[in-house]
């Protein structure tokens, strides 16, 4: 399947040793932001994937080893970027904080 489930894919039944997981939470003023859009950009800045956040502001990607950028978009907010390094068999945690426009 090729759609984006809110919050990103479930970890149920996934062999994490084979995956390079990037995950985190989008917040604004300390509160989680549901329904934000988180984009995963590769080392050249090219788009690779996008998921809407869950009601608790969470997102998750299954990437490959290397450097990535995650960017959050939400209504009335300045897009927030963070650089993250993914490793196969690991979970890279990255939180994104949105500021109001």
């Amino acid at each position, binding site marked *: 399947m090729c759609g984006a489930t*809110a919050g990103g894919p479930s970890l149920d039944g996934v062999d994490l040793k084979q995956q390079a997981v990037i995950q985190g939470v989008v917040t604004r003023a300390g509160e989680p932001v549901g329904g934000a859009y988180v984009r995963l950009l590769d080392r050249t800045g090219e788009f690779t994937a*996008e998921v809407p956040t869950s009601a608790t502001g969470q997102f998750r990607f299954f990437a490959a080893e290397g450097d990535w950028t995650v960017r959050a978009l939400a*209504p009335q907010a300045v897009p927030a970027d963070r650089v993250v390094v993914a490793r196969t068999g690991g979970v890279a945690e990255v939180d994104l904080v949105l500021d109001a426009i």
Partner: protein
Amino acid sequence: MSRSAALVDPDWVEQHLDDDAVVLVEVDEDTTAYDKAHIRGAVKLDWKQDLQDPVRRDFVNKAQFEHLLSSRGIGNDHTVVLYGGNNNWFAAYAYWYFKLYGHEQVKLVDGGRKKWELESRELTDQATERPAASYTAQEPDTSIRAFRDEVVTAIGSLNLVDVRSPDEYAGRLLAPAHLPQESAQRGGHIPTAASVPWSKAANEDGTFRSDDELQRLYSDAGVDFGKDTIAYCRIGERSAHTWFVLHELLEQANVKNYDGSWTEYGSLVGVPVAVGDEPGAA
């Protein structure tokens, strides 16, 4: 077709919410998105449950498509206006599907659900009730659908456009990164295919880039507009987005979407595969 005939913007949608000639249709892979909230009056299509045969890998047939649209209250004379999540991937897929079965008036909402949400436009969780209609489909138009043998024949002669992300093209990823990485297929791409990620055709809010920008994008990637083109991705929905760009916005005559895409091609025995960032030789 042209941009003005194939695309509408969110303002147009708001002005036509009560237009009886228009049926809004949301198409998502994650149908819980529609169930939680959708544009008022929109009906739902589930690209997998509704548009795919439940047993073999193929589309629903003409009779099943007729039954589906009739049950959703869509008639042949309605203007079908599609939108959805994932930057309209599945809405573009459904658009292509409606064209395949010969629907006359079909349009896509520029930016899809994301732009609508980012602009804080109104959504509702109220169920849409539409009286059943009687829909008659045309025979499938295979001039816009490519099958595996013609894809293999196209290597080195037609334009092949791989619209997946650069890491999927190179073989470093096997699926978009919002999904677990599968291992059923080999990684890589069809030799000679140009890499033009679908996302380069869209702005960050999901809207399409201008015709000039789009023309330049494909020309710079080596697409020869004098030749026929086949677009593919992993399962055919992102390449439906690119088919829409080439065929509907840029009005290229012979463009096909290969919906078998990498999940089929990457599993075939004996076909050539190129790995890495270069297109590779025929």
